[in-house]
């Protein structure tokens, strides 16, 4: 993983090397898995890394914003599952990470999160939960 803090997007997935976790879930199982992941909490952030050690600048920024909202949220490290990482892009028709979901719906990536936060709309949205 390049150490470039802005690296928010993965390149084309390289062919799985020996020992690299090879995704087993395909097709509808993957859809079901994504469905359950995006609905496993009111607020779910799909990010690179985890809140304690985010692996990219935009993911870290998204966590920072969510931490200010005073609402519990779950995260999923898309670097840990190559199938979810690819599958979620098609599922949501959104090519980059992080991705924020509220009640199973894509709210947006880092830009939208920041703009909504700046305009107070993120708090409004979370207050409805």
């Amino acid at each position, binding site marked *: 993983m390049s150490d470039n803090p802005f690296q*928010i*997007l993965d390149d084309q997935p390289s062919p799985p090397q020996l020992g690299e976790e090879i995704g087993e879930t395909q097709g509808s199982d993957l859809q079901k898995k994504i469905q359950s992941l995006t609905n496993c909490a009111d607020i779910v952030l799909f990010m690179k890394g985890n809140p304690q050690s985010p692996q990219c600048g935009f993911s870290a920024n998204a966590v920072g914003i969510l931490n200010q909202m005073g609402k519990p949220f779950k995260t999923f490290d898309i670097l840990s599952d190559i199938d979810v990482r690819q599958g979620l892009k098609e599922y949501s028709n959104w090519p980059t990470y992080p991705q924020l979901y509220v009640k199973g719906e894509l*709210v947006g990536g880092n830009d939208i999160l920041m703009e909504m936060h700046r305009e107070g709309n993120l708090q409004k949205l979370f207050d409805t939960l």
Partner: protein
Amino acid sequence: MDPMNRAKELIERQIPDAIVEVSDLTGTRDHVSLLVASDVFKGKNLLEQHRMVMDILKEEFSQELHAVQIKTMTKEKRMNS
């Protein structure tokens, strides 16, 4: 042509009335800030606006474009800002 200018050109081609401003976030010309002002965004929420731009750049993302920071607005808002 580098990814930055290609992104700008692609958007201008797909959204003819768009005003597109690009800037290089990191000096590597593949982490790009994009401001797109167009009246096609009228009546669309933020996600739909950004998704329009992301769809146009989808191919680029699989090539050399790494990251974009997007700001979208109507032309009117652009004039007053």
